[in-house]
């Protein structure tokens, strides 16, 4: 069966003055996925998500939500099945957590029972009677997630949801986000500038750089881009290099190591025997892998922050 995309953007572009914040973006978010939208600060993540939610008007291009092209007329109808948390949580500080959710529950038209349910999910049930102005930043962030979860929408759009959370809160938020597709059938789009965060949460990833989508696929596919090499360290680099060349192996020098392409175990064993037979002491034989960070940096540019 063909994969259904809950979000599809076609040539999505946003220009402020002469600056193109988002440039011809073709984003595809499959149903049931946790889609990590990754990019350095200022890459255009929030602008893209705002355009998907109709909060910013695209300069060019179109957005298809739940298989229907979004326009001014059907926007509210399509967004009825979405929840969102953009940049920072929205709240009325003079009202309690429960009252804040009551407003959104009324606007969403869902059952009042869901208020308690989502408060329990984000562990704010005990603080529901407190004014939100007295909440910590982490609690406000969790209230924002609770608000997004109200009505248990098909699609949840979370922009940097772990901002302001402590390490335990971050871990908790990650676990919650990961569980949403299986527990509630919710497709999640989560943006972050932290690769490690997306790596732990998402199964699909889109990497944006200077407004352009430079990579989009499954996270597993991104991992497969990782380049594997064998690193050798011996007591006699000159003879080692000569022997490697005699065997037709391309080697590059990196400090005390020679980096050679990945090869099967038998061949490595044979190579090691040959080096020892020539009186070379073998100190290290290691498998090296190009990390996700390296891939990310190569896609987004070294100057970008992680």
């Amino acid at each position, binding site marked *: 069966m063909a994969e259904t995309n809950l979000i599809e953007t076609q040539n999505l572009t946003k220009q402020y003055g002469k600056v193109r914040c988002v440039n011809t973006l073709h984003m595809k978010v499959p149903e049931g996925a946790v889609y990590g939208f990754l990019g350095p600060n200022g890459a255009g993540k929030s602008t893209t998500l705002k355009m998907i939610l109709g909060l910013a008007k695209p300069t060019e291009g179109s957005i298809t939500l739940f298989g229907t092209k979004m326009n001014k007329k059907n926007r509210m109808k399509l967004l009825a099945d979405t929840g969102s948390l953009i940049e920072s949580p929205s709240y009325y500080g003079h009202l309690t957590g429960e009252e804040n959710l009551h*407003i959104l529950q009324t606007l969403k038209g869902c059952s009042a029972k869901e208020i308690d349910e989502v408060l329990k999910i984000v562990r704010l049930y005990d603080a529901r009677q407190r004014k939100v102005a007295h909440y910590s930043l982490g609690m406000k962030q969790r209230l924002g997630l609770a608000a997004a979860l109200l009505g248990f929408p098909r699609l949840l759009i979370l922009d940097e949801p772990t901002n302001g959370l402590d390490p335990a809160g971050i871990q908790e938020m990650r676990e919650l986000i990961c569980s949403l597709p299986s527990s509630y059938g919710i497709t999640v789009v989560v943006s972050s500038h932290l690769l490690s965060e997306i790596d732990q949460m998402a199964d699909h990833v889109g990497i944006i750089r200077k407004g352009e989508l430079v990579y989009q696929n499954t996270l597993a596919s991104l991992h497969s881009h990782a380049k594997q090499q064998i690193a050798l360290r011996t007591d006699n680099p000159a003879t080692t290099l000569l022997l490697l060349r005699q065997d037709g192996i391309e080697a590059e020098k990196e400090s005390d190591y020679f980096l050679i392409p990945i090869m099967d175990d038998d061949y490595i064993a044979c190579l090691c025997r040959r080096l020892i037979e020539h009186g070379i002491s073998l100190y290290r034989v290691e498998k090296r892998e190009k990390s996700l960070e390296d891939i990310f940096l190569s896609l987004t540019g070294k100057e970008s922050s992680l």
Partner: protein
Amino acid sequence: MKTLQLEFYKIKRRKVFLTMFAMLSVQFLWGLWELRNPKDWELESGWRALLYSLSLLDGIMMPSVMSVLASRLADIEHKGNTYKQLETLRSAGSLYHAKAICGCIIIALMFAAQFAFFILLGYQLGYVGHPDIKYYLLSYALKLASNISLFFLQLALSMFFANQMIPLVAGLGGSMVALLLMFVTTYSFLPWGGSLSASLVMSEWNLDTRISTYYYRTFSPPELAAVICIFIWLIVFYVTGRILFTRREV
């Protein structure tokens, strides 16, 4: 309707009604002080004098009061950064409309309280006869129109600017303009001159007797145009504010 109900729910604990009452209480205190111990001729024309005085007081105070009301209603959204959430659930236009209607209801209640207080005070002081219902109702309607037009102007500013100092300064400036207008004219096409134009009673000061005579106004064509202008401002401010609000990006 739901959105409108929620507007009142949102201002829970914001003491909006109390703020309005506190501002009105300045007028109440003025009434208790200024109208005490009326002379016979003052009792005779008391009901007309009351309409005249209230239009002057409103003219000076209401631009500022409207700016405070609009700011109280809009500020909660700016502080909590709520538009980006609300606008995924309701159109920006309907949110603006609900806010505007909420403000209009508060204004209507505020002026009802004002009239109720001063009518009771008039009876207490022993004003001759009864208030002329026709003129009092017309005055109430015109008072609403002129102040709602100012409220719409202030709401547009308060909804558009996150920094509430801008609309509040505009409101204070409006009060100053209204005060200046009172020295030079009996009607004005400016939005802050609405109370002046809508005043149904005029006064004539007799230097020799040192007695003011109050009479119901007969509107000349330019004065009538100034009254019509109040309604034009009302529509212009509402439509402009709504367009500005719906076109901006969150």
